[in-house]
């Protein structure tokens, strides 16, 4: 009772990175709350799957294994979580803000009448005083996220309803193995007790998944373009610079929405989070949601015609000028001075 649960996604026998990142964060929150960390894995062909999550410090791993449970469909996964949460009464439940998490999270939270906060950029434990009601709440989960398309950060809480649910995007938290031989218990759930035939009315007829071709998350240098780049054509300059530096190319949401770059390259609260050793921001104004995706970069260069662009206050180097002038110079110098 009162433990912290993490729903773990599996694709092709591999537990998703976002789930491992949440287990790591869950472990540290559970330590603070002095409660247990429990993982839930729902799918098919899950032999030995617990070995992938145990090293991250899960005290208990609940596994439910049935051919009908993969690939993911809403009803059976929701049925398992709803019933399990009714039994186990967790205080907190976390899942990745992925197409699965965003489909499953609200379904479960609605059934349990619990609050859900999407796309959190930070999770903390703290107290809350409701002066009107004269109540004090201790050890609540602060669900922190930028809000409302502007420079606002909101702290959201669920004082009364349980579990307190939150979704977090991949890369926001860092994964870390704490002990390969962590003393975990495994609980195999019996399928028939959790799902029924009516849960399988929705059927997947075909699936075409592409392995990610672009690995921006792992790049040590990122050249990123914003709305200020101006066009898909102009983005070619950034690709050239990236090519020369051995970097990956990213984009702000504004640039993606305007069609200058593919959605897969979007960096920010609703895209990818990166922590490269160098982030070169080209024509990016730097709204809060973008900064949330790159502010932990070791070094940041901002190239912008606007000397007062918000991103400049994050940058180590601010170059005020036009990308079409500056980037070619960077490329030229680099080519001339390295092998």
């Amino acid at each position: 009772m009162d433990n912290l649960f993490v729903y773990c996604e599996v694709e092709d026998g591999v537990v998703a990175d976002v789930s491992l990142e949440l287990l790591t964060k869950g472990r540290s929150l559970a330590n603070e709350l002095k409660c247990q960390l429990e993982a839930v894995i729902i799918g098919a062909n899950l032999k030995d799957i617990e070995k992938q999550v145990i090293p991250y410090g899960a005290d208990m791993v609940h596994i439910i294994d049935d051919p009908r449970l993969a690939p993911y469909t809403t009803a059976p996964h929701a049925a398992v979580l709803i019933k399990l949460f009714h039994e186990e009464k967790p205080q907190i439940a976390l899942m990745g803000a992925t197409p699965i998490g965003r489909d499953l999270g609200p379904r479960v939270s609605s059934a349990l009448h619990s609050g859900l906060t999407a796309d959190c950029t930070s999770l903390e434990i703290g107290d809350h005083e409701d002066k009107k009601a004269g109540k004090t709440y201790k050890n609540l989960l602060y669900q922190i996220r930028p809000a409302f398309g502007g420079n606002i950060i909101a702290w959201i809480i669920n004082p009364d309803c349980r579990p307190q649910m939150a979704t977090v995007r991949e890369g926001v938290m860092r994964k870390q193995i704490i002990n390969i031989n962590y003393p975990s218990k495994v609980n195999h759930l019996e399928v028939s007790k959790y799902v029924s035939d009516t849960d399988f009315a929705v059927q997947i007829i075909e699936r075409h998944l592409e392995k990610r071709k672009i690995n921006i998350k792992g790049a040590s240098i990122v050249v990123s373009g914003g709305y200020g780049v101006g066009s898909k054509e102009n983005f070619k300059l950034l690709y050239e610079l990236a090519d020369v530096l051995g970097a990956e190319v990213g984009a702000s949401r504004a640039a993606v929405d305007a069609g200058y770059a593919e959605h897969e390259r979007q960096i920010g609260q609703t895209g990818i989070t990166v922590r490269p050793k160098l982030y070169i921001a080209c024509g990016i104004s730097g709204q809060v949601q973008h900064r949330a995706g790159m502010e932990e970069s070791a070094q940041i260069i901002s190239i912008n015609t606007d000397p007062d662009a918000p991103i400049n206050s994050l940058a180590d180097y601010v170059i005020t000028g036009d990308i079409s002038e500056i980037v070619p110079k960077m490329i030229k110098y680099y080519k001339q001075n390295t092998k």
Partner: protein
Amino acid sequence: MKGLRIIVLAKQVPDTRNVGKDAMKADGTVNRAVLPAIFNPEDLNALELALRVKDEIPGTTVTILTMGPGRAAEIIREGLYRGADGGILLTDRAFAGSDTLATSYALCQAIKEMGKFDLIVAGRQAIDGDTAQVGPQVAEKLGINQITYVEAILQVEKSGLKVRRRLDNGVETVKAPLPLLLTVNSSAPDCRSRNAKLLMKYKHARTVTERQNAAEDYLYLYDSRPFLNIHEMTVNEIQAIPDQLGLTGSPTKVKRIENVILQAKDAKRLTAADEGINDLMKELIESHVIG
């Protein structure tokens, strides 16, 4: 086959896509009043999918349901101009302060008053909240299946729908029986533009409240043209448990909001002059950040 009864869930939202400098107040907060109010983009994609089913299957009706303040009637008119058959504005002070759960509860109770339906379509998420929660929560409360991230409806049959989903890393073809709720991505086709004939037909469509506030000139129309009535539903028209509405009915509460005031770092400032760029590149290469 018989026409489908389709409900489109839509929301009027401030246009947060391009929050320029004018929208930012001196203390760092957003000046909502300055942002234009629009039909949430992905809800327009949802409307288009509904209209395409109507094109294909005669007898299909498309009704827009929106929860919001009085001016949200604007998006119902917008939907009528594009081909919707009618609209309902769910509006009441009692809904103020609703989080996604309280919102989906109110919508669900309103839908129960609207009679039998076959399909509900909603945009995947609204550009102000960005949570993508209301669609699935409404489906759960109605006890019907949901399919999210839909980009196209491939086939409509008595036994159900076949749809294509666009996910982060690929596509799925999924089939499900009716009744069903779909949430629709921006990768779905753009909504058709306003139809001139429909614009002429519906330009005086109003809710009762709007008529009360408006000039007398067109009031005579409403008796002879019932299609100009945009139905308003308040708390009195839906069976709702009061403490599940509004702020009281919202499990999530905002504890605190912080205006992000950026602390300027000690940044090195350069211009596009050759010397500055060369020095920068030299520094980065020497410290092994690049090269």
